[in-house]
């Protein structure tokens, strides 16, 4: 099977995010970057599918040179090939999707895996956009995947439950937490990854369709009120919710 995982290089989940001087982007000083956590589930699932069905796992990232760190992490996990679509310009989801779709069309994968969303932009759009551009079916927010006889059964999260979706292959999936437990790269894997090649290509450029006007910190929350410390405080809390906050 030809399996492709698309990965993004994003600020660490614990990083404190400040608005940069231009007021439209973040201040990257002192911010550590990691593989997008949802993309890690995508890479892991591709590796497992290869272990079960044979084939090749290719990992692709669109971005600047620093994205190579994330590609090396994927190589250390065991992917066969890494490709950097080299471009560090600011792009919206549509423009990112177009660049990825344009490259992926050449590869003709059986399965393309994304994380459900990138924790910087949080659009949750690129995977589904790429699917549409490649005229492939897609299933988003996947927590379980089974492949049999050229078809896939994907379980996805919806409000209050799950949906089991059947899809033909090739197809695009976006990974949700719970799909798998990503492996820790072995020391051997990390050392080997240092010397594995990363292919660089120039991605196609299309104009973005969304313009960022400003980035702002959210307004700070006012202090809460401590009503009590155990179940005996409940009647007073209920009274306050009813009479003061007027929410019940």
């Amino acid at each position, binding site marked *: 099977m030809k399996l492709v995982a698309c990965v993004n290089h994003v600020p660490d989940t614990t990083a404190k995010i400040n608005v940069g001087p231009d007021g439209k982007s973040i201040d990257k000083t002192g911010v550590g970057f990691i593989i997008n956590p949802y993309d890690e589930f995508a890479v892991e699932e591709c590796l497992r599918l290869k272990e079960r069905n044979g084939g090749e796992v290719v990992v692709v990232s669109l971005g600047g040179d620093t994205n190579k760190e994330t590609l090396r992490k994927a190589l250390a996990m065991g992917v066969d090939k890494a490709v950097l679509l080299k471009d560090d310009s600011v792009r919206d989801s549509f423009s990112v999707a177009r660049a990825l779709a344009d490259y992926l069309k050449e590869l003709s994968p059986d399965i393309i895996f994304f994380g459900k969303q990138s924790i910087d932009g*949080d659009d*949750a759009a690129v995977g589904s*956009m790429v699917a549409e*551009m490649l005229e492939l079916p897609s299933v988003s927010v996947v927590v379980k995947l089974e492949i049999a006889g050229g078809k896939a059964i994907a379980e996805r999260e919806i409000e209050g439950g799950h949906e089991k979706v059947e899809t033909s292959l090739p197809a695009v999936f976006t990974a949700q937490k719970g799909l798998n437990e990503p492996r820790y790269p072995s020391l051997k894997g990390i050392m080997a990854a240092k010397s594995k090649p990363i292919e660089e290509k120039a991605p196609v450029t299309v104009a973005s369709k969304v313009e960022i006007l400003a980035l702002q*910190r*959210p307004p700070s929350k006012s202090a809460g009120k401590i009503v009590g410390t155990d179940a005996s405080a409940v009647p007073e809390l209920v009274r306050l919710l009813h009479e003061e906050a007027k929410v019940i």
Partner: protein
Amino acid sequence: MKILAVAEQRDNRFKKTAFEVARTARVLADQLASEVVGLVIGNNTKSIAGELGGYGAQRVIVVDNPRLGTYSTTAYSKVVSEVAMKEQASIVLLAATAMGKDCAPRVAVKLDAGLAADCTALKVNSGEIVATRPVYAGKVSTEIKVTSPTKVFTLRPNVFASGTSSGSAAAVDQVDIELVENDFGSTVKEVTQSSGKIDVAEADIIVTGGRGFRRSCRCLACGCRCGMATAR
């Protein structure tokens, strides 16, 4: 100008978000001298469609098909974009629910439109819509505008007010959209509800607490006479 308000239904009942989307479309339409057209997709949904009139839709288009009774990413995306094109809607609004977040990106590509996803506010500045949405896991928020002629917005559930229904019924138009086997590349085979749990997204009020709250939580739920969704 027309705003297409995609109203989500499950089992032929509108989700709360359907009314939030219709009302938000109305608020925008009043500032942009536009018409609000609702869209309902499903099987035998004609009977509920008119309800959107109470929330600001002037007309509602119903696309009914036995195969649309269950969700299909590819089929629903095709229906939304074909209706948007037929109506020449320049703005398409959906709720940022599981369904909305799933099909909106595909609709955006079909309409060659920019997508503003999971918006928490929409305002009109000099005839242009400025959307506010959270980024970096909500650590910062961003104000954006969609620069393409056609624009798709998904609205975070439970943020935009639906208001109360005026009771007026919208005119309902049944429209046929041709769907072929290929349009059903992915289809839902089974839906399982998490047993005994309330769909948090449909709740009017949500009370949350830290781990130490767990014991008091049941007492609070009893005291307020409300359901308890989950304790992790």
